[in-house]
């Protein structure tokens, strides 16, 4: 890292401090040094306070309005009520069908996604040739960045029709459609994280196993995968979180009937999820009504589900990791033994009939098949969008304003609006997030207070984006009366990515060895000098990757902006923060769901949005790759 070439020194008076030891006036430099240290500490503390206050405020705000519904209908009627019918003669606000819908859609999605993802991860990490791996791995990572509204667009156009015809059902909008779509969306995430876990299993494990005469498949099954289990579990939980929190794609394909499937295994029944309910009912609900409070209750239920998943993941990972940390060899042997017992039990019916070689052949066939299925599904979506979308791209489309409800003209204001929204969100979240993380890691000891702050940040980190949309709508748009405006959208997006930025920055700061800090202090550097010159520079790539991934997420999200900032059509670019803006994901959503006869424009918008988000993710991958290479050298 070349410090001298970095950005110009912001304040001329501090210029001397770049080299305090060669400063002309050492005494005053020393005094300044400590003053700076003090100011920096206070500023960081203040930023951390603001960020933490925001995080806690969101949670309290949701709980406060959500609690109203408990007062109005009773907790039992709300949570266990079988009927969600806010518009009925006798309005009913039972969320049980929504909870069941969410759980069913997520469970089936995981049942589809987990085997395919782990198969793909094993293929990429263990079986694929180096060159194939180099091509497939970044491709799968990029696919994790496809905005959900793009998947929803595809689900609406192809998937529901396919289900209706293929299974001879009256309607294709169903639990199954939602699950397939969520599975396709979760696969890249799970595969990518699981592959990292499998690849990080030390080479000696494989060599040892092969040397003992095990086949390649036996090695994978009994040694590598058990060893990578914590990482794989984390991957599954991450994918599950994404599936539960997904709003737009699900909303577009599940039919949104608030019923519990009857019988409960009827995958062709329409279902409604918690997030989908917020997505379709938030915009028209009368402020302060019981229905309004019920929607907050739904958000709180989502918050608790997130909490449950977070806790479960922590327990699972610590269970598996715990013993390994202390007594690795024994625990490892035990795990392998357990895994092989399970494998024996599973293959028992085949008894001695199946030779190791045959079983390897079968296993590899299934694994390759899973990769083929995954790549085919994702390839089909990409191919459809690129082929149909590229044709819609023209100079007018990219630089013009929409006409005739988006059926003609261009999407230029939407492209610019997306940049405004993301730029503003980042301008809010990046300084606050980095400062908070620095303060938490460098200035505080591990106390119950910091632990609860971290828990709050984690909770919001996994919270579905539609919940942020609800918060932005209720607090910024309605309560503070910002109206549907650019600033409301920017703040909402900023709050949404704030937890991610705090967490990724914390992770990269934590990865800096304590010895570096101690060395810096030993040389007489102040705390701030240590942080700014010793700790932050090597942590920068990690922080940047986190920031870029947040940009990608913010650019592709529809749910947080559709009730806070986005308008469907505008000839002008916004000239102030109080004006609404167009945005690509929202434009695509409206074109797809509300404007008949605009399929060319839909494909074109999807294509542009896809290019934009994928470019951002590509940047993140490149930054990380460069950083990894530097580390090796």
């Amino acid at each position, binding site marked *: 890292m070349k410090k001298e070439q970095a950005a*110009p020194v*912001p304040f001329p008076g501090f210029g001397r401090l770049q080299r305090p030891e060669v400063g002309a006036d050492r005494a005053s430099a020393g005094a300044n040094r400590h003053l700076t240290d003090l100011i920096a500490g206070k500023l960081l503390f203040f930023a951390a306070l603001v960020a933490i206050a925001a995080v806690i405020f969101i949670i309290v705000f949701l709980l406060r309005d959500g609690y109203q519904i408990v007062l109005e209908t009773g907790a039992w009627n709300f949570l266990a009520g079988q009927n969600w019918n806010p518009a009925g003669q006798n309005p009913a606000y039972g969320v049980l069908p929504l909870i069941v819908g969410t759980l069913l859609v997520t469970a089936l999605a995981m049942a589809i996604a987990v085997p395919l993802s782990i198969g793909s991860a094993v293929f990429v990490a263990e079986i694929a040739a180096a060159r194939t791996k180099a091509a497939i791995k970044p491709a799968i990572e990029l696919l994790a960045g496809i905005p959900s509204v793009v998947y929803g667009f595809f689900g609406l156009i192809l998937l529901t029709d396919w289900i209706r015809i293929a299974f001879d059902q009256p309607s294709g909008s169903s639990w199954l459609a939602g699950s397939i779509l969520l599975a396709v969306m979760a696969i890249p995430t799970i595969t990518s994280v699981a592959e990292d876990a499998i690849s990080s299993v030390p080479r000696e494990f494989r060599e040892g196993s092969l040397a003992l005469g095990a086949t390649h498949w036996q090695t994978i099954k009994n040694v590598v995968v058990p060893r990578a289990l914590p990482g794989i579990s984390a991957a599954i939980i991450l994918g599950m979180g994404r599936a539960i929190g997904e709003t737009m794609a699900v909303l577009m394909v599940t039919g949104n009937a608030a019923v519990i499937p009857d019988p409960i295994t009827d995958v062709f029944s329409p279902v409604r999820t918690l997030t989908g309910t917020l997505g379709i009912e938030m915009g028209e609900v009368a402020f302060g009504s019981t229905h309004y409070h019920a929607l907050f209750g739904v958000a709180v239920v989502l918050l608790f589900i997130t909490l449950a998943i977070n806790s479960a993941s922590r327990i699972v990972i610590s269970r598996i990791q715990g013993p390994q940390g202390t007594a690795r060899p024994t625990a490892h042997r035990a795990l392998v033994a357990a895994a092989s017992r399970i494998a024996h039990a599973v293959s028992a019916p085949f008894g001695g009939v199946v030779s190791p070689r045959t079983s390897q052949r079968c296993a590899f066939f299934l694994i390759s098949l899973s990769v083929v299925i995954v790549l085919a599904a994702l390839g089909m979506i990409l191919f459809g969008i690129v082929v149909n979308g590229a044709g819609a791209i023209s100079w007018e489309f990219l630089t013009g304003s929409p006409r005739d409800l988006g059926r003609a003209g261009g999407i230029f204001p939407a492209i610019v609006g997306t940049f405004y929204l993301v730029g503003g969100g980042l301008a809010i979240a990046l300084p606050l997030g980095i400062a908070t993380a620095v303060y938490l890691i460098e200035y505080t000891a591990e106390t119950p207070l910091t632990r609860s702050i971290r828990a709050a940040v984690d909770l919001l980190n996994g919270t579905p984006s539609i919940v942020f949309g609800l918060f932005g709508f209720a607090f910024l748009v309605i309560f503070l009366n910002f109206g549907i405006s650019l600033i409301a959208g920017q703040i909402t997006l900023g709050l949404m990515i704030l937890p991610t930025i705090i967490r990724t920055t914390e992770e990269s700061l934590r990865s800096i060895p304590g010895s570096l800090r101690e060395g810096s202090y030993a040389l007489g550097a102040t705390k701030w000098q240590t942080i700014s010159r010793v700790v932050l520079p090597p942590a920068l790539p990690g922080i940047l990757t986190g920031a870029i991934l947040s*940009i990608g997420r913010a650019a592709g999200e529809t749910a947080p902006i559709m009730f806070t900032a986005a308008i469907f059509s505008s000839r002008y670019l916004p000239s102030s923060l109080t004006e609404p803006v167009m945005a690509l994901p929202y434009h695509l959503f409206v074109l797809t769901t509300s404007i008949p006869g605009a399929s060319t424009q839909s494909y074109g918008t999807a294509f542009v949005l896809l290019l934009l988000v994928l470019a951002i993710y590509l940047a993140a991958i490149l930054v990380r790759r460069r950083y990894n290479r530097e580390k090796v050298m």
Partner: protein
Amino acid sequence: MAGKSLSNMAAVAVAGTLVALLMIAGCLGSEGDSVTSPSQQITVTGSTTVLPIAERAKEAFEANDASAAIMVSGGGSSVGIKAVGEGTADIGMASRDLKPEEAASYPGIVRHEIARDAILLVVNPENSVDRLTPGQVRGIYNGTYTNWNQVGGPDQPIVVVGRDSASGTREFFSEFIMDKEDFIRTQEEFNSNGGIQQKVSRTPGAIGYVGLGYTEGVKALALDVDGTAVEPTLQNITDGTYPINRPLFMLTDGEPGGLARQYLEFIMSAEGQEIVASLDYIPVQG
């Protein structure tokens, strides 16, 4: 403060990229015709049902008067009422009348009925049914009839499609057809007319209700009123023979002035009402 400049570097790198992109975007824009700075400006927000009228009227209005900027956004009737009541928008749009609590909070709101919206029953074009009595419609939506052969159609399960429970369209439909009786719980719900239209056009057994403008790819049913089939033609809707229609409002806080008044006058003018008709709403003037 080399370190500070380093942490700055992160911010500068990211901000720089964004600024560069914005500048590129800005340059592209100034080449197009889309970006000029307006001198007079109003905001219009609210119901997505009224949105197309506001949007088209805005396009025509701005074509006549280049100095005017009218910002049209959606968000729903509640947002429109709240925004105009609180003064954050100049004009609110609502596809329903004010609720009692809303009227109490904002006594100054003036309603302008700018158009009417008919609600059509639509089925898939393959469906042989082409008329239903209000009683049959109610039977379908409350779950009494579950197969088309119960109402004179083919042997095919009925897929009931409707609007979300916060929708003004659903509220109106519920009062008019259902007499506030509950809908069948397996009704599939969409939050836009277009969503219902798409669903019905792709699903042979589906029935839905949409605004007048959403009939591409679907078949609008005639309403069987006392034995006569009333087609939902513009004529029948305008003279009230086809009974399912409701008013659409623009709202202002007190009597409007300036650009807001000109804009509303434009919508109520012959040209404005022509726009209303061209978007398949029912004109209220002329």
